[in-house]
């Protein structure tokens, strides 16, 4: 996939030694010797623990500073509420956390920026819906990272998963860090073990279809559809006792539909734009819409056929609706954001607790692609200097290895590699007792460059483009447009939104 190639390319660029690189390296070494004492002091701070840097962490104690953190209602923030007292005790800064739907977050942030009020200090900066259209209103976080009067960022930026850092942290300007990776939901395939590991069902399927039906990247999207169809048939004739639909999808006319379709489209080798930066660093010039490609059209046809086998409710479910339906026991398998693992394993919310496993999504000609939907925390540039610094302290604490490790057990997914290397965390994963931890190896597998799905656009017009994509897809799924018409119309609308081709071209 082009996006993944881009990330690999960035990695590759670092390793390639050019004359310019050699000169830079030499200069850097000389500079390092010159500032060795300062670096030594900085290294001490890099231990990252508040205890090692109590003075800078506590510089606003007794000043009565209050900051506001506006977030989408996501597992990390829900967990954060239980721990924010620790930050308040450490720094003396009061944090008011507000959680709401993403659309509401977008509107509130826009109005704050428009009025330049600076009331929202810490912003849950969704890369596509908030950062891309509003990126000129965030503070460059390097200002704080490089400030010796503030606590150092523990382990530095290199500790963050590179894909998460690029996806959540930057918008076009690669020298300007706008957000620190905070959460990282990733699309995986959830499936019911009481169905897929039932020997009778499994053997019967193997006998009839000739292959192992275990969900994962070993099966193709066509096989996935075939499995769903087979289950539907066997439930109808009573062979499968559980009253389930073969599959369920988040195909409501909403952002979730675009996300759901993206998994299939990327696996088929299609994409929304040809410019490889559009879903990684962000770009002001995404170019023409690529939904007219043969790969995208094939994906649309395949997706349409898959949805014909999905539970009828799929057309009215977003990710929440799908998760509720899966928890209610009505679906055998479903592509879903991995953060719903906590819901599926909550016996108060789920009838399938203890019977759910996660796997990478099915593959296509381009391999398995698992859509990434991470978000970072950013600082509002309209706040006072003092509040911006306080906001940075909170972000630094909230994304620190210690906090990420604590929140891990409450449904959050760490974005720092050091957390995964932590001996205790590795032991948790090895123990495989906590379902929230158990899903992490699959998530890490999905984050590999060859598996990650980067399709959501970091372009200024993404919200409109997204709307155009899921509206035409919805029309396709409800039969008012053919896949060809849907893709053609989507290309036409999206190119119009982006003024493509440019005048005079």
């Amino acid at each position, binding site marked *: 996939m082009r996006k993944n190639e881009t990330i690999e390319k960035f990695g590759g660029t670092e390793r390639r030694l050019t004359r310019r690189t050699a000169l830079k390296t030499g200069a850097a070494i000389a500079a390092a010797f010159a500032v060795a004492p300062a670096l030594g002091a900085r290294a001490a701070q890099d231990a990252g623990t508040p205890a090692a840097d109590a003075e800078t962490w506590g510089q606003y104690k007794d000043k009565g500073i209050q900051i506001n953190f506006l977030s989408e209602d996501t597992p990390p923030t829900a967990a954060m509420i239980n721990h924010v007292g620790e930050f308040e005790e450490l720094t003396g800064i009061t944090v008011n956390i507000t959680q709401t739907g993403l*659309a509401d977050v*977008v*509107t509130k942030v*826009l*109005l704050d*920026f*428009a009025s*330049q009020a600076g009331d929202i200090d810490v912003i849950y900066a969704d890369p596509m819906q908030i950062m891309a*259209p*509003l990126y*000129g*209103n965030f503070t460059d976080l390097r200002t704080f990272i490089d400030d010796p009067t503030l606590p150092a960022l523990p382990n530095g930026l290199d500790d963050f998963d590179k894909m998460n850092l690029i996806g959540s942290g930057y918008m076009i300007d690669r020298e300007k860090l706008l957000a620190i990776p905070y959460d990282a939901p990733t699309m995986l395939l959830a499936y019911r073990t009481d169905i897929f590991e039932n020997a009778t069902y499994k053997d019967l399927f193997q006998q009839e279809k000739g292959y192992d039906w275990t969900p994962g990247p070993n099966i193709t999207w066509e096989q996935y559809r075939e499995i769903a169809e087979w289950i539907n048939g066997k439930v109808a004739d009573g062979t499968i006792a559980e009253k389930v639909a073969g599959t369920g999808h988040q*195909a*409501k*006319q*909403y952002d979730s539909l675009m996300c759901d379709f993206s998994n299939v489209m990327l696996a088929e080798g299609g994409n929304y734009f040809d410019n490889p930066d559009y879903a990684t660093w962000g770009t002001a010039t995404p170019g023409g819409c690529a939904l007219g490609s043969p790969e995208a059209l094939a994906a649309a046809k395949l997706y349409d056929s898959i949805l014909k086998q999905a*539970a*009828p*409710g*799929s*057309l*009215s*479910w977003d990710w929440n*609706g799908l998760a*509720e*339906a899966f928890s*209610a026991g*009505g*679906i055998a398998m479903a592509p879903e954001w991995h953060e719903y693992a906590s819901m599926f394993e909550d016996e108060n919310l789920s009838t399938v607790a203890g019977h759910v496993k996660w796997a990478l999504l099915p593959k296509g000609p381009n391999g398995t692609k698992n859509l990434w939907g991470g978000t970072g925390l950013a600082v509002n540039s309209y706040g006072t200097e003092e509040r911006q610094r306080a906001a940075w302290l909170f972000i630094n604490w909230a994304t620190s290895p210690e906090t990420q490790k604590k929140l891990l057990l409450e449904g959050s997914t760490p974005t720092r590699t050091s957390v995964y290397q932590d001996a205790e965390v590795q032991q948790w994963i090895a123990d495989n007792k906590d379902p929230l931890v158990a899903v992490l190896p699959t998530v890490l597998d999905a984050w590999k460059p060859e598996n990650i799905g980067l399709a959501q656009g970091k372009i200024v017009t993404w*919200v*409109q483009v997204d*709307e155009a994509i899921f*509206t035409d897809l*919805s*029309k396709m*799924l*409800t039969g*008012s447009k053919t896949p060809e018409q849907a893709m053609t119309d989507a290309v036409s609308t999206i190119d119009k939104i982006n003024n493509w081709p440019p005048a005079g071209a």
Partner: protein
Amino acid sequence: MSTPVQTPTQQLQVVTAQPKRIPILGRLSPEGWMVLPTVLVLLAVSIYPFLYMIRMSFFEYSPLPQVPSKFVGLGNWVQMLQDQAIWASWLTTAWYFGAALTLQLVLGVAIALLIEHTPYFRDALATILLSPMFVAPVLVGLLWRFLLHDSYGVYTYFLHEIGLLNNVSILGDPRTAMPAVVLMDTWEWTPLVVIVVLSGLRALPHDVLEASVVDGSSYWQQVRYITLPMLRPVILVAALIRSMDLLRYIDHLMVTTAGGPADSTKIIGIRIFEEAFRFFRLGYASALGLAMIVVTIFLGRLFVNVLGEEQGAPGA
């Protein structure tokens, strides 16, 4: 005692000696002074934003400080007229508006008549029937989303049990999504019509009704030829209120269908919300909003004119 005669010069001096006053304030009566603060507040919170909205409709308006707004003249208005998606939304709005208003008026009048003729616990019954109206519209949407959920929705379950809508997602199928959202709105707002009609029913002159009974009219004849004609002004008021609300309220649609599937429930209010607060195209959204205001005023005038004719004062 004779009054000294003032020369024109003296008169002029008297006039010029008076403190300068804003003419309109000088003419204000005590009641006018009492109303003035309200008018000023209204100017600040309603009229100024309205004028600003008109101004915005001529701009490619950016709310962000670093992005300058661009004057586009009638560009947004021309685009609105040429935008097929907008016309499709108006058509959807017409369906939604017509179905919901008709249903609510018919049911509202019927329920009011039923309550009025209930011999016992009339007030208690009215209170229970009116309760949906006091629920926030967004909660109504969430409630109905729960009731119609394809996996565990109670209504979905009962419909499937009686063999209806099997393999159909009520909120996910264009054929059923619109009726569903119409029913949601009807469930919540029919009680408003009931209240208005009940108040009208209780104000009806009893002597006329008694005379019709003496003349031998049946109950249905009484309703058909006396009650409903006399209630007509009240029903028109209910229709006026509901028609304005139907165009404005999008809460329950946003949390259930969000305009889908396939744009089948995307009424103009949702489209305006999207343009303004999802796409940040405030200039275009202003033009759309003003068009909606024009339509609302037109509908309002239509009802008021009908009402005026009924009361013998055309155009009142």
